[in-house]
């Protein structure tokens, strides 16, 4: 399955934001946001979630608990499949440091549709 990270292939855009992407919401796990759709006229990066290597996993929202249909959170998970908050925080801490974190690279390696375009309706 392909999900899209909206925006560019920059290292920062492929790294979670501390205090934003590291916090879970009703029906939505903490993690980097991805969606099954691209807004019309926008640019996005298509990720094959089957190509994500451990510990990264794409977790779909639970729409019965307030999540958004088609939305996924990409985050490192532990052996039980739960979001590993410590690893997620450490990943987020690397943002803006000028270095590509190993999880950021795992995600960049799972890109199968670089620079996908949202079709105009």
């Amino acid at each position, binding site marked *: 399955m392909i999900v899209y990270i909206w*925006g560019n292939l*920059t290292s920062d855009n492929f790294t979670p934001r501390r205090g934003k992407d590291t916090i879970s919401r009703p029906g939505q796990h903490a993690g980097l946001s991805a969606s099954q759709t691209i807004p019309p006229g926008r*640019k996005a990066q298509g990720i094959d979630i089957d190509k994500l290597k451990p510990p990264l996993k794409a977790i779909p929202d639970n729409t019965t608990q307030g999540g958004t249909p088609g939305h996924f959170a990409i985050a490192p998970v532990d052996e039980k499949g739960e979001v590993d908050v410590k690893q997620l925080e450490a990943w987020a801490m690397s943002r803006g440091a000028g270095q*590509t974190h190993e999880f950021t690279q795992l995600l960049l390696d799972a890109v199968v*549709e670089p620079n996908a375009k949202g079709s105009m309706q």
Partner: protein
Amino acid sequence: MTLATAAVFQPVARKEYLDRLAALSPGPAFTPELWTEVHEEVQEQLVLLEAEVHRMVAEVRVDAGRTEGNRFFLFSYRTFSMPHSTLDPVVAGITFIPARQAVTVEADVSGERTGDWISSVPSKTVANSREELVAVARDSARKLCQSADAIAAALTDPSRRVE
């Protein structure tokens, strides 16, 4: 009646003129060194874009970077952002994507997180040589340098605020 005969020529080991076979190579050798050269060429051109945007928006922060992945050789970029602002940063970048023993070069200016298109350069496919690849990279980067006005406008456009 005579039997048909077939001339059989045994292969002869020769090492002379092997360099001529290089002319038959299906495109440039995609080595890490080549991508570093291409990245440096792109960044050398984007310095001019940075200077021009700085002239128009003095407080802009500019960061240079590069990424790579299994399905793209290189994304070489500069990110323009407004400090202490929720406006989406603007990225001027060039992506080099494999395409059947060739490389597709895509250059554009767009929002880092929203992906809103600000300007773009028609994509090109390069198949012939290292020199052509570097030349297309240089040309695409120079064309991106014409986007300073659009970048300055986007960096002060309140409709581009993100969460």
